[in-house]
């Protein structure tokens, strides 16, 4: 086949695939401006759905909850995960292998199983709490934990492994001699860790933190089983899609798309700036 034709075929194929990926999103965006509620006939241009979105208290509450949970769980996960990564790196090979394998569980397990298993745990706990309280004759053990506590526990549980697998490689790459140099110059081990090792780990810790936030905000299945009566943003979206009524969903989808696009462009810009600066230093 001629080189020219091959090129054209390549490009056509790529265009096809990318259209496949983006057309549904584009259609959603187009119909977010639709006058009527129809999802197939475009009657007129309007921004009403966006306006009503901003007054939709269910969505706004859900968004607030999602953001709060994401921040708190990401923070706790990052701290626990970094500590774990450091601890694991000091362990013998067999222990390390075992713990790493176990840590992979939440990552490779289908989300429905993680969600269901946590739900069973909480249900079992609730049963135990009820029995204990009945036994003691007073409500001492917290019983109705479904809601914020369970959501937080769930989100932390699936986030920490990502922190560990993000920080551990950076830890392995670290030059031991730098840590020794800090000791040599007068630091005790704790000081040496915080003054010399932590700054080197920071990029990995930060990116792990961002990963945790991303996965937390986006999580649906695990939250679905552990949320009790609360609604995170994805759960609110789910209930909206069940009702299938309003193009507010389209508006929400378009907004989310633009936000993600902006974040990607921003981080890309920051990355290329840093890359150019590093090149200049030589």
């Amino acid at each position: 086949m001629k080189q020219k034709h091959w090129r054209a075929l390549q490009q056509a194929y790529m265009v096809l695939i990318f259209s496949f990926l983006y057309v549904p999103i584009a259609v959603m965006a187009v119909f977010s401006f639709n006058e009527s509620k129809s999802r197939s006939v475009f009657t007129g241009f309007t921004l009403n759905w966006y306006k009503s979105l901003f007054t939709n208290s269910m969505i706004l509450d859900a968004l607030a909850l999602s953001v709060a949970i994401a921040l708190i769980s990401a923070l706790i996960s990052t701290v626990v995960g970094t500590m774990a990564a450091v601890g694991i790196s000091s362990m013998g090979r067999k222990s390390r292998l075992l713990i790493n394998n176990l840590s992979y569980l939440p990552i490779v397990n289908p989300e429905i199983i993680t969600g269901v298993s946590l739900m069973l745990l909480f249900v079992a706990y609730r049963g135990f709490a009820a029995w204990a309280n009945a036994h003691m004759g007073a409500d001492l053990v917290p019983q109705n934990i479904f809601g914020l506590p369970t959501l937080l526990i769930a989100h932390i549980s699936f986030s920490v492994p990502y922190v560990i697998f993000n920080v551990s490689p950076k830890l392995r790459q670290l030059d031991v001699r730098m840590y020794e140099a800090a000791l040599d110059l007068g630091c005790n081990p704790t000081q040496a860790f915080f003054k010399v090792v932590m700054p080197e780990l920071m990029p990995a810790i930060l990116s792990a933190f961002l990963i945790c936030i991303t996965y937390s905000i986006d999580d649906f299945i695990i939250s679905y089983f552990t949320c009790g009566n609360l609604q995170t943003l994805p759960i609110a979206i789910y209930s909206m899609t069940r009702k299938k009524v309003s193009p507010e969903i389209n508006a929400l989808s378009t907004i989310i798309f633009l936000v993600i696009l902006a974040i990607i462009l921003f981080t890309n810009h920051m990355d290329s700036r840093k890359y150019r600066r590093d090149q200049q230093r030589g």
Partner: protein
Amino acid sequence: MVQKKSLAAPYLVWMAAFIIAPLIIVVYFALTDSAGNFTLDNLMTIGRYSTVFARSLILAAVATAICLVLAFPVGYFLSRLRTSKQHIMQMLVMLPMWMNFLLRTYAWMSLLEKNGIINRILGLVGLGPFEMINTSGAVVLGMVYNYLPYMILPLYTAMTKIDQSVVEAAQDLGAGMGKILTRVLIPLSVPGIATGITMVFVPAVSTFIISRMLGGGSNLLIGDLIELQFLGNSYNYNLGSAMSLVLMVIVLLCMSFTSSFDEEDMEGVV
């Protein structure tokens, strides 16, 4: 270096309590009845749902295969681009991944409906309307759409490691397109293929959203069944746990199969 094994303690406690213990509880529920007595009835009952299990496996396998075929050229073409372009294209592939997956699936609902856009466009040329939504085809389409990027990225990563000179050497030695594919590209991208298959098949076989939104009530998958036992109308924790156990075994089999192809030195994969 820093000899502080104890720092891992909080995590280990957490892991035992919230990752391992729940799974043990699932196994417990799977093997007991509502009174708490040991029984294999739950596992036996699953036999009644063998069609559902078969459907899940088949649909997931079909979706995985389609993803593999579609993604392979994409991964290859991407890896041949200039590095600066590669970065941008990588972003473009990942963007849909970061969109909320409920919204992406919902998008297809509006497209596939009887009065949806696709049928309208086809109507303009006198075709249809086709019954597209609430079919297993729609479910497969939903799976492919959602998980395609998860197949593209590992393939792309694996293929960036294949130097162009290897392909050129094969051409020099007389290999045509077909031979290059089977003798060079596929063998060298096996780790990427393995990863991609895992990252598509596992979510596909366990999903319940896609089947619910695009399959109507008639295309139940394992995920739907499990959800019904726990939060839905059926309400049978023991049966649900048994189903979850079976699902876990399926996933474990899939992963141990694909990890035998994975050369990468990941410290601690099955």
